């Protein structure tokens, strides 16, 4: 193992242990890692914005004839007026453009890309190849979707049939949250195993290389 490789392993080990140490309590090592992390993240976006946006999406296409891209170029520059309290209102136009396009896209996507497909997928037959199993699954699915929707129904007080359905909804919601919680736990543990494996195999393994 070369000196550079050894340094790299120790650097990663330091960053890993420093961040883990926060779980005990806040300490100077964590603060070092935290501040470096914030700085690197900002530096990462400098490189990314320069390369993938300014050069690839703006400058190069403008130079190849799409001159009208000067409009988003100006809107981008106007965004920086936000740094001055006196002129920050100028940046609203750029922000409004971002909000408008995003809202326009979301309006269609939320209805066409989410609501309709989710409803369509729930339209399952009550009777199928699994017999009683299909019936049970469809009933669970339909009652689950309807009662969840009713739980979030605000126009009328939750009394009578509406109240009962909403009550069923909260039971369903709790079952779902429990299931999701339980399902995620193991996935998160495997992530931890990955980091511990690095510390044991690579870092502690490198101890023999020193000296």
């Amino acid at each position, binding site marked *: 193992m070369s000196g550079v490789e050894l340094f790299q392993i120790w650097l990663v080990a330091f960053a890993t242990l420093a*961040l883990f140490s*926060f779980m005990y*309590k*806040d300490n100077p090592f*964590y*603060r070092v*890692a*935290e501040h470096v*992390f*914030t700085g*690197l*993240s*900002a530096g*990462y*976006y400098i490189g990314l914005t320069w390369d993938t946006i300014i050069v690839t999406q703006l400058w190069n296409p403008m130079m190849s004839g799409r001159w009208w891209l000067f409009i988003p170029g100006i809107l981008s520059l106007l965004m920086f007026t936000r740094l001055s309290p006196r002129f920050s209102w100028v940046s609203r136009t750029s922000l409004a453009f971002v909000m408008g396009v995003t809202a326009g896209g979301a309006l269609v996507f939320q209805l*066409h890309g989410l*609501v*309709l*497909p989710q*409803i*369509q997928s*729930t*339209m*399952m*037959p*009550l*009777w199928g190849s699994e017999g009683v199993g299909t019936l049970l699954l*469809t009933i669970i699915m*339909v009652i689950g*979707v*309807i009662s969840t*929707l*009713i739980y*979030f*129904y*605000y*126009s009328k007080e939750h009394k009578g049939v509406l109240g009962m359905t909403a009550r069923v909804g909260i039971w369903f*919601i709790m079952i*779902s*949250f*429990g299931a*999701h*919680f339980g399902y*995620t736990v193991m996935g998160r543990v495997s992530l931890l195993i990955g980091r511990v494996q690095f510390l044991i195999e690579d870092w502690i393994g490198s101890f023999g290389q020193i000296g």
Partner: protein
Amino acid sequence: MVRYVAGEQFAFTATVNGYMMRERPATNIYMGGFFAESLLLAETGNAAGSIQIAGTPRPEQLPFFIAACDYTLLGEELYAASAYLSHQPVMLGGLKGQDFVKMLLVICLVLGVLLVTFGIGETYLGWFESV
């Protein structure tokens, strides 16, 4: 003052977590789209002793907010909260409209299940795809 912290999910979390443990804020409000950072933030806020209110439309993060926060707005409650707090007619009207569509969807769903069960739902299902 609103302060930009980081664009990257975990760099943001590392900074905010450190900030919470040092400054010990009385209240933390988490509203909007959250991913894996939800629990990291909410658990740290809990350890810092803050009152915590969360709300996200992302169902996969809700169990974690429920476990670690004092109050959690589930799914669309996040959007309904502004109408509830402001009492603006336009906002409340929007909520009414949403409820109307919800009921319409419930009827469509029941009808769809019955049609599909009797094997005559092809055209109906196709309509949902073609819209």
